[in-house]
């Protein structure tokens, strides 16, 4: 099993990352997922996170099989 990570829009370009699967070992929450995929790149202030396609904050607990997404404020419509 693994954690699926997705990035959208300017976040995809910022991290040069569209989709990635990471090992869940050592990952407790959303903030840990960021560290795994972004390394030392700081998270932009207005970054939004979703876990399993529902918005979540950085302390949200994640694990095996979860889908975690990072993206900027939405601009549709």
């Amino acid at each position, binding site marked *: 099993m693994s954690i699926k990570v997705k990035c959208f829009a300017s976040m995809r370009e910022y991290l040069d990352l569209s989709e990635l699967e990471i090992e869940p070992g050592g990952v407790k929450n959303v903030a840990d997922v960021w560290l795994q995929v972004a390394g030392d790149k700081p998270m932009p202030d207005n970054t939004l996170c979703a876990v399993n396609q529902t918005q979540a904050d950085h302390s949200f607990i994640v694990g095996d099989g979860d889908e975690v997404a990072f993206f900027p404020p*939405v601009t*549709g419509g």
Partner: protein
Amino acid sequence: MEHESAGQQSTSHGQIAIVTEAFDPWIELSTYEKSHLTAGHYGAAATFVGTMRDFNEGDNVSAMELEHYPGMTDAQLQAIIDEAQAKWPLDSALIIHRVGRIVPGEPIVLVACWSAHRAAAFDACRHLMEALKSRAPFWKKETLNDQSHRWVEKNTDGYSAP
């Protein structure tokens, strides 16, 4: 009307569609009304169509790429419709949103609400549109006339007229 569809869901009281090709909002409304509404039961239809302009924030814009989060977008739009259905007595609600490459003059979004009375239709339509703008995961990247690109960074408040 069948869509080149990136996602479509239908419930007894509403429908959402995320489409990859240009759509004609007036044909969509006509078709939807004939197939999903009962004539004589609704007295009010409030609709909104958002169309791509050829200018934004003082610059000419020649095209736009509209990205979305497949799955989450559909779920959010459906949740927004469900909330509106719970809050107002709607006969039906419809949301169509375009994704992919768009050029000025093409519709981006259609929101429509049908109800017995106009206050509910107006309120629900505007609420759906503001909820969509603030919560549905879509992102716009503009191509300017010099072929440079920029992400639209945030949506404006839709309740304050200039």
